[in-house]
């Protein structure tokens, strides 16, 4: 049994099932879509068991060298509290686990976002003002004016009239350029995914047909 060719044909089969949606919704597409959801969920569960629960919880609670660490029961119980959401009578217990997750995430994000996405960005804007060639100075001024006017646009506590209004208009213009760039990159991203699949079908799958039919090498 040539497992490689079988694998390629399985991949091609599910690819065509999904692409059939382009004509219209049909049973082949629905089959592949449901299969994908189920198999992905199975994959996620297994990796969480093999790569997280066993090494990071079970082997800490019941070490291979022997003994039992009672403290590790606590995160196990909290993880079970998450599952308690499935049963209406015990659903309230999930709040305890959620509180821990959300609280830890909020505490971390508060500091990290401020440091990385606010302070460092402001610093980068201030020190970007260059003293090189005329073009460098112009570019750095565009950057500074762009950031400031963009921030003014998002400041809704004051009416956008007068000087504030004119600055906000400059901000929208800069934002339009940024969104245009994002749009261009998004088009590229989507097409790249299609190119990848076409390369698979034409370079990996199509050559297997003559092989299976006994034509060619």
């Amino acid at each position, binding site marked *: 049994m040539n497992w490689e060719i079988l694998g390629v044909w399985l991949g091609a089969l599910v690819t065509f099932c999904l692409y059939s949606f382009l004509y219209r919704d049909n049973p082949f597409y629905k089959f592949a879509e449901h299969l994908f959801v189920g198999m992905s969920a199975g994959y996620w569960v297994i990796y969480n068991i093999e790569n997280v629960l066993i090494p990071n919880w079970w082997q800490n609670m019941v070490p291979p060298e022997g003994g039992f660490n009672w403290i590790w029961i606590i995160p196990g119980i909290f993880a079970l509290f998450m599952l308690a959401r499935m049963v209406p009578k015990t659903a309230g217990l999930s709040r305890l686990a959620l509180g821990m997750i959300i609280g830890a995430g909020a505490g971390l994000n508060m500091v990290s*976002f401020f440091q990385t996405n606010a302070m460092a960005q402001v610093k980068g804007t201030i020190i970007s003002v260059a003293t090189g060639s005329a073009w460098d100075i112009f570019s750095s001024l565009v950057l500074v004016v762009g950031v400031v006017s963009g921030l003014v646009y998002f400041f809704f506590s004051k009416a956008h009239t007068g000087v504030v209004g004119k600055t906000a208009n400059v901000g929208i213009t800069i934002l339009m350029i940024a969104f245009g760039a994002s749009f261009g990159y998004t088009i590229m991203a989507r097409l790249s995914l299609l190119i990848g699949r076409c390369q698979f079908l034409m370079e990996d799958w199509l050559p297997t047909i003559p092989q299976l039919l006994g034509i060619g090498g």
Partner: protein
Amino acid sequence: MRLIIPLVITFTAGMIMILNYFVPHQPFRLLGDNLQEWFLIVASGAIFLGAANLMHVHFRKIRLKLKNWKYSPVTIIGFLVMFVLGLIYGVVEGKPFDFLFLNMVAPMGATMFSLLAFFVASAAFRAFRASNWRATLLLTSAFLVMLGQVPIGAMIWDKIPLAKVWLMSIPNTAGQRAVMIGAAMGVVATSLRIIFGIERSYLGGAD
């Protein structure tokens, strides 16, 4: 009482993470390390919740014969096949679990998202209108990036890639940075509200 204990847990977890950042010495270091390790396990619980919910939804669909119920066994069988093979053979390269992932799950995932290429082309054709000067500016910026990102842009005019690099490094960075700083302020405000128990929406829906 049913809200107070979760809010206390939220506050405690949040403060441990913040204090761990500013005071990386004992006892906050020990508290922080333990909380971070426990976080991994509890976050894992959320994955199992998702899988359990998926199975519950599909079994219910079959039981009540809801729309498209005939496809629900496909989801359940797909899940069970991966689950059983993973438990028996593990996640080692070359085993059945890995084989099915690389030859079925991966192609399906890649194909699902590649469908977007068609829809984005159709949407661009129908909806992208240069109806005012700002929309025209957006369109021009998009065209410059689309040409600058591919070799054909350099073939048309060798300055196009340079213009693209400048556009990405200066006006794009300025616009994205303005959005980023604003969003960061929002995250800080929301995080504070969550830690101090003012924002409680994440606790709702479990009655």
